[in-house]
């Protein structure tokens, strides 16, 4: 089985990289881009039967820093 973990900076945490991308898009002439948030996607190849709880534990303990980041687990 495969799971995809989406890690994003929490709302309210300034994302300077996202801001830089937003500025660059504006400078390229893409009007109307009001916000950009940049995160990461981590794909896990897992033994069949790995529970979502177990993946949640991986996120809590390593894949995300929950002080600043939130995560979403997608089983694919």
């Amino acid at each position, binding site marked *: 089985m495969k799971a995809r973990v989406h890690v994003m900076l929490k709302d309210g945490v300034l994302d300077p990289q996202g801001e*830089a991308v937003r500025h660059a898009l504006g400078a390229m002439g893409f009007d109307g881009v009001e916000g950009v948030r940049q995160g990461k996607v981590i794909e896990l190849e897992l033994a069949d039967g790995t529970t979502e709880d177990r993946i949640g534990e991986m996120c809590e303990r390593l*894949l995300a820093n929950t*002080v*600043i980041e939130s995560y979403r687990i997608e089983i694919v």
Partner: protein
Amino acid sequence: MKAAVIVFPGSNCDRDLAVALRAAGIETEMVWHKDTSLPEGTDLVGVPGGFSYGDYLRCGAIAATSPVIRAVHDHAQRGGYVIGICNGFQILTETGMLPGALLRNAGLKYICRTVPLRVATAESVYTTGYAAGDTINIPIAHHDGNYIADPDTLSRLADEDRIAFTYADNPNGSVHDIAGVLSENRRVLGMMPHPERAADAAHGGTDGRRLFAHLADALESA
């Protein structure tokens, strides 16, 4: 009085830190991150700067899972002293031994220069050689030094006088200009600036030397 400096793959300030500690008269041993225990009689653990594990995933995140970290954690729980500098500070926040986190610098640039720091409290073995309000010049060299913590944590840090250093001229966007924080028992210090790079006249400045000198005195009498 003994110190142990942890060496991770990608550490690059481990030797500088050991030189500064030894110059202050502290017997210092290097400890590989795969070790599961600290040398007998370790009083102080130094978690050095660098790019442990190439900053993969997040700065300090992989190092925080190293075998030796369990021993460092136990050492701190027993009331032992720990100083984490730059990447060491990032590692200590990743382990949860210090609150908050370090984000990419607000200006997105890696910054490597000497900056003025304010000593925010003299109430720790690390800062007792200074007076609160002193300005000292210490180099910074980081890409991810933008300190952040939730509002409750920030007010607790301020109320408990646990902000050790602030930037006189904030270079990286850190909330409340925070450059270094102390643990609840004031024995664990994390700071982004590099006092070990201002510990010898040949460095171009010696404002960091007092930190190590007074740390040595404090540990000697403890």
